[in-house]
């Protein structure tokens, strides 16, 4: 791996000052002059004006007709910085979800695109609702026409849920641990199963090594669960989302794991 083992001075120049970041964020939305920026941000006139001149001197912004515009490249830099900022936010916001959990089976691409999960919601069980995570997923799955899932363990209700989706003429595609493959398959009603497999509505792949990842993709929603570092599945937390970016993120992850099955 070749990483330029140093944070570029330009990154430091921008990241060092929240005021500069704020100014860029405003100018990125709309070109403006110092007075306008002061009004929008409530930052002191002198700070705005001194940072504006630093930004101009370092070629991040240009003055055109009395207003400052960000240069095209600055937009790219700024977007990248904000993308990083959002990744920090996601790590912090869902700290209990990531912390001390096994991320080995996430693809490097899914980690790089972690900000796609920005609009997710963390569902945690509570003492009065200890099945909250399972029930949330169940509700999503039962009315779905298309289910893709990675099951590292067998929940007793899964066979029935799968039957339900198939009865409604939906399709189910599963990646499961080798150890539960047979159990799961044979608990699904024989007739329904055989018919669905014939019609291509049910596909089940057996994953050779251990699965450390729980993922369901139902029509428009996705949910993600992780294993703890001690090797047990964390039944108390899932990340769910119904926005398009997360959905696509989940699909890419599903495809990534599926490729490993085929190899």
């Amino acid at each position, binding site marked *: 791996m070749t990483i330029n083992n140093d944070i570029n001075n330009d990154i430091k120049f921008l990241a060092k000052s*929240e005021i500069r970041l704020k100014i860029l964020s405003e100018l990125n939305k709309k070109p403006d002059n110092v007075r306008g920026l002061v009004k929008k941000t409530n930052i002191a006139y002198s700070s705005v004006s001194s940072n504006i001149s630093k930004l101009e001197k370092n070629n991040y912004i240009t003055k055109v007709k009395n207003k400052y515009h960000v240069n095209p490249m600055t937009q790219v830099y700024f977007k990248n910085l904000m993308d990083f900022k959002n990744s920090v936010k996601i790590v912090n916001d869902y700290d209990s979800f990531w912390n001390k959990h096994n991320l080995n089976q996430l693809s490097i691409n899914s980690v790089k695109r972690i900000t796609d999960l920005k609009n997710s919601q963390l569902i945690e069980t509570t003492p009065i609702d200890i099945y909250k995570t399972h029930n949330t997923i169940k509700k999503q799955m039962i009315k779905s026409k298309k289910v893709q899932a990675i099951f590292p363990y067998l929940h007793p209700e899964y066979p029935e849920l799968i039957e339900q989706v198939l009865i409604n003429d939906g399709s189910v595609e599963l990646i499961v641990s080798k150890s539960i493959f047979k159990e799961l398959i044979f608990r699904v009603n024989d007739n329904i199963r055989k018919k669905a497999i014939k019609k291509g509505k049910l596909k089940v792949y057996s994953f050779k090594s251990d699965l450390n990842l729980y993922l369901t993709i139902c029509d428009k929603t996705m949910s993600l669960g992780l294993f703890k570092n001690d090797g047990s599945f964390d039944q108390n937390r899932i990340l769910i989302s119904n926005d398009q970016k997360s959905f696509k993120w989940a699909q890419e992850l599903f495809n990534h794991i599926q490729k490993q099955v085929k190899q």
Partner: protein
Amino acid sequence: MTATDIKKELNEEFSGVKYILTSGMRSKLLIAMYESPKNLDELRKELKKPSATILHGLKELETINLIKKVQKYYELTSNGFLLTTNMVKLIENWYAINKSKIYWNSHDLSGIPDGILNDIYLLKNAEYVNSTTSDLSNAFNTYIKLISKATKLKIILPIYSENHFKHLIKVLNGNKLKKLELIVNEEIIESINENIVLKKELLMNKKVNVKCVNKKLKVFLTISDTFMTLTLFFNDGHYDDSQILIAKDQNAIKWGKTLANNYKK
């Protein structure tokens, strides 16, 4: 609001970014451990800093739960791994942009949607071929040489250029190229239709599939199985035929495909 309130608000808005990115020590430590878990001795050698400095940095990172010590080795926690991967992405992006700063800065980027612009680090192995005063068509000739070897081409064509068409037709009439997908807008297609030869050789050619989109096209993008090229317009609206970006790795080709798909939508 008082000055301290504003400061606090700003700190919250950009929290985390500053802490990680402005300390060379902290970021270097994270990157060193991103490669593999390391012990103090290895870190000291890699960073060329005394133990005390390194231990201090390690302590800070341990406190905010980005790294942990397992036996004698320091390694990233899951949070640290998420964060460092994204920091490395940021640095790689930055490196790629810097390398090509002049190219990107002097061109109109409005034809590249935000999400895709964010990924231009995928182009980090790209080369930039410029025409020079002694060879005014260097960029163009390099391009023609590339397309003449392709078996499959997908092109977003934002310009009507008979010179380009002439060479495309020549390649189409050869044996190598099996399929050409052209993405153009109505204006271009009308112009092609007015020229009998182009209409016959391009639009009616069985190897050619033309997709007409109702969009302003601001990029000249070509993708094959083995390369991608990109030329852009200047900010003043003129097409720049003197600079071409060429990349031959899968990441760059993937980036190009994403961009092309975006136009087809």
